Every structure is written in structure tokens, then in C-alpha cells.
């Protein structure tokens, strides 16, 4: 088909400075009308409500304990537990246990991130690998990592290696699965845009896929942390002695051996408190910030 386009020039230069200015002003007005003002205020409910919930739980616990349904040494109230925690604190045992466990937990978690992230990215991006290893990784997430404790003791004896092995087996599958889920939820046009913009496979993974998958990835990290903390406690309860240090799980086990419910409940509360603190100080703010920056927080109950 022969086209007879003769005049390719864009036409007379009727575009004056004035007209451009007028267009700019018009657009500025429309932009203002169509943009929503976003406002943020300090939200005290975020602090007051969880504190109130804790107070309510403690009150209920104290009341039930005061009813005297069971012997006080079998079912101590919050005041009794606070007293034995205070004793342990003076002896320095709680601090030592928390530091030991937290160090192990954080170190194990850090290693899990370093191992799990490239693994997850690789599985999410390479189809044959995903098909081959996907079910295995999902399966590993279902397998309680405590199941690895006997094997780890046989392999590594009562050393720190046993504890770290169990932590890694708990955390890595969660992180990998979280990242894969995050990648699966990326809108397909993010990839086509990247391709049009000339991204290589590597750039696509690092500059587009990873940031796009961040919400899922952070959810995976959060679960990975929970799993590593749990596995750590389980490992510390089961594997005691040898060159193993004294962690919160060991404290719990000591309470059981001594039949001291004060110590047992105190250790449980310390384990819980660490979990809550990490959520409040690390994952909560990170997640909120992530969602807010993407405009995903409006109307959420967080």
C-alpha cells in the first residue's frame, strides 16, 4: 500500500510560550483537584491498646489463680511468677539465658536469610528448578524442625552446631517459600515493562522482581524468624549439657527438672516477651512502612 504522506512537518508553529504556560497551569489545577491529601497523626491507640490487653490477661490470670482451684505451687499467679523471675534476675540467670538464646536466634536467622534469599530467588525465577524443588521445600516447611534434633545430636553431638542446624532447617524453608509467594504475586506487566526498558535477566531479578516481591518476602522473613525462635527453644529444651550454653529453653528444662512452676512460667513469659518485642520493634514497623509507601495501608486494621 502506497502512502502519500507529503507533509511530515508538525504544522505551523502555533505553539507559543503563552499556550504552553496555559496548559501547565491547567494541568497543575487538575493535578491538585485529583490528588488526595494524605495526613498522618500520632496514634496512641497503637501503644495503649496492646498494653490494655496485657493488663486484662494478667488480671484474669490473677483472679483464676486466687480462686484456689489448684495448689499454689502448681498454678502460680502472675505475682508469684514475677517474684521468681525477680529471683532469677538477681542471680543473673534470666539475662544470661536471654542473651544466649537471642544471640543464637539472631545469628541463625541471619544465616538463614543469606542462604534462603538467593535460593528463593533462584527457585522463583527458574521454572525447572521450581518444579523440581518446590514441593520439597514446601514439605520441609510442614516438617516440624524438632524432628531434626535427634539427627543433629547424632551428627554434631551436644554442641552449638546442633542448635544452629535445627534453626536453619526451621527458618530457611519459610524464607524461601515467602519469597516464592511474593514473586508469584507480582503483576505480569511489571516484567514486561522491565523487558521493554531493556533489563537483563539479572537486572530484572534484582531491580524489579525482588523489590516487587518485598511484601511477601518480609512476611516470609517474619515467619522464618518465628520458626527459628521456636526451633531454637525446642532444641534447647531437648539438647542440654555438653558444650551447649545456657539458653531460655535450658532454663525452661531446669524448671521442669526442679518441678518449679515459677521458673517454668517465668521462662515461658521470657520466651514470649522476646517474640513480642521483636515483632513490635522490628517486623511491625518494617511491614507498616513497606505497605504505607506502596499505598496498601488505607483501610487496613494494622
Amino acid at each position: 500500500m502506497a502512502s502519500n504522506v507529503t507533509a511530515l512537518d508538525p504544522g505551523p508553529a502555533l505553539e507559543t510560550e503563552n499556550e504552553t504556560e496555559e496548559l501547565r497551569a491547567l494541568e497543575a489545577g487538575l493535578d491538585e483537584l485529583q490528588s488526595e491529601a494524605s495526613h498522618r497523626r500520632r496514634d496512641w491507640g497503637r501503644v495503649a491498646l496492646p498494653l490494655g490487653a496485657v493488663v486484662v490477661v494478667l488480671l484474669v490470670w490473677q483472679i483464676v489463680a486466687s480462686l484456689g482451684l489448684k495448689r499454689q505451687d502448681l498454678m502460680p499467679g502472675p505475682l508469684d511468677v514475677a517474684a521468681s523471675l525477680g529471683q532469677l534476675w538477681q542471680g543473673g540467670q534470666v539475662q544470661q539465658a536471654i542473651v544466649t538464646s537471642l544471640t543464637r536466634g539472631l545469628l541463625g536467622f541471619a544465616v538463614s536469610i543469606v542462604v534462603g534469599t538467593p535460593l528463593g530467588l533462584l527457585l522463583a525465577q527458574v521454572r525447572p528448578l521450581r518444579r523440581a524443588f518446590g514441593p520439597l521445600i514446601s514439605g520441609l516447611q510442614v516438617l516440624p524442625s524438632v524432628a531434626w534434633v535427634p539427627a543433629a545430636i547424632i551428627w554434631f553431638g551436644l554442641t552449638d552446631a546442633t542448635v544452629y542446624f535445627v534453626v536453619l532447617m526451621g527458618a530457611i524453608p519459610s524464607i524461601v517459600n515467602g519469597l516464592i509467594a511474593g514473586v508469584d504475586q507480582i503483576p505480569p506487566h511489571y516484567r514486561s515493562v522491565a523487558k521493554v526498558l531493556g533489563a537483563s535477566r539479572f537486572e530484572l531479578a534484582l531491580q524489579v522482581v525482588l523489590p516487587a516481591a518485598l511484601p511477601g518476602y518480609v512476611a516470609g522473613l517474619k515467619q522464618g524468624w518465628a520458626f527459628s525462635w521456636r526451633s531454637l527453644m525446642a532444641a534447647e529444651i531437648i539438647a542440654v549439657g555438653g558444650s551447649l550454653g545456657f539458653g531460655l529453653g535450658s532454663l525452661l528444662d531446669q524448671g521442669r527438672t526442679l518441678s518449679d512452676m515459677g521458673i517454668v512460667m517465668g521462662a515461658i513469659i521470657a520466651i514470649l516477651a522476646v517474640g513480642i518485642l521483636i515483632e513490635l520493634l522490628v517486623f511491625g514497623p518494617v511491614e507498616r512502612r513497606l505497605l504505607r509507601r506502596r499505598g496498601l495501608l488505607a483501610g487496613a486494621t494494622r
Partner: protein
Amino acid sequence: MSVLLENLGKRFGDGGPILEGVNASIGAGEFVALLGASGCGKSTLLNIIAGLERPTSGALEVPADGAAFMFQDAALYPWLTARGNIELALKLRGVGKAERRARATELLELVHLGEAADKRPHELSGGMRQRVALARALSQDREVLLMDEPFAALDAITRDLLHEELTRIWRETGRTIIFVTHNVREAVRLGQRVLLLSSRPGRVVSEWDVPVAVKDDAAAAAALTADITARLREEIRRHGK
């Protein structure tokens, strides 16, 4: 010639042809509107010109550096600011860091969004997002700009404004623009030339020149719009049973 399509054909697997015998030649700096009903393979044609898909028959000639692309959805990355989105595009092109910043500012000024540079996509209106997407497409610095119904999802006031904006930017930058649309009026308003594609299979069945004199004369533009609409409807009726 900037883009030359010769007897281009495309079919997926054993299905019927999507495109068959598409012929067109588009000059450097020309603004061409590609018009067609659903199923005319417009998006496939753009993908082929952009090099995202290969034709199954025929030949095409495009500038060696490929083409920039703008989609119906602005498709900005929500974790980056307006500026960040443009800077990423420049980065993927291999532009140095200092230059990226200056160039992004320049492009945002070009689409009149200098003020909104540090806003994130969810804080921008639909029209502003499309302007950022336009700036990102221009950051590609390619001679040819392919636009796949970029204003279809916008309200009438915004679309009207963006038509003016796009015309101004086209004049300022001298790009070759291939603009796909369902909207006859939009095609007449923007294009120097309107190509009508048939449906199933898609091929160029008709074309009209739209001189500036016609664009500026409301009655003449309306007459041409009616003319093109009649031809488009005739093409659609052919598919009725």
C-alpha cells in the same frame, strides 16, 4: 522511512492468523494513529514492532535501537517515586548516576510534573501516572514511541488535556509515534495519518491523512470522524452472522 512493515503475518500455534499481510510505512517524525475494533491484533502488532514478539511471516524494518513502549496501564513501580521510576529506566539503559538525576528532572519538567517528583505512584492521579509513564518512555531516547491505548482508562477532561500535552511533546521531541486506539475521535485529533486495521485477521484496510487544517476546523474534523466511523462499522459488521 522509520518503520516499514511488509506483508507481515502472525499466528499463534495452530490458531487462525492474528495478523495477515500487514503493509505500512511510517516516516521518521510522523504521528500515526492505528485504529481498529477488538481482535484486530493491534497489541500484537505493537509487540512485533517493539521486538517483543517475532512475526511468523513477512518482514519489518525498524530502527536498530528498537522502540520505546507505553502501555494502557501506567505500570509504574509502586515502591519507587515518580523520579525513581524514571531513574530506573535510565539506569537500565546504562546512564551514569549523576546524569540520571539531571535527565529525570528534565523529563519530569517536560511533562509538567516537576513538583511531584518525589511522590509515589499511589499519591498521583491517573493522568499524572500516565504522564510519568510518558516521561519514562521518553527516557528511552528511542526514535520510535509505541503507545498502546495509553489514555483509554482516563476521564474525559484528563484525556483531553493529555492529548494536548502529547501533541506538544511530540512537536518538541520530534519522535515517531505509533498510537493504538479504539477511539476514532482520538485518532483524528492526534494522528497525522489514521490507519484502519481489519479484525481477524488484522490487516491495514484503509488510511486517511489528517492535515492540520482539518484538525483545526471542527466541522471538517467531525466529517472525517464520521467517515472513518462508517468504514470501521462496515468492517465490524462483516463479522456478524
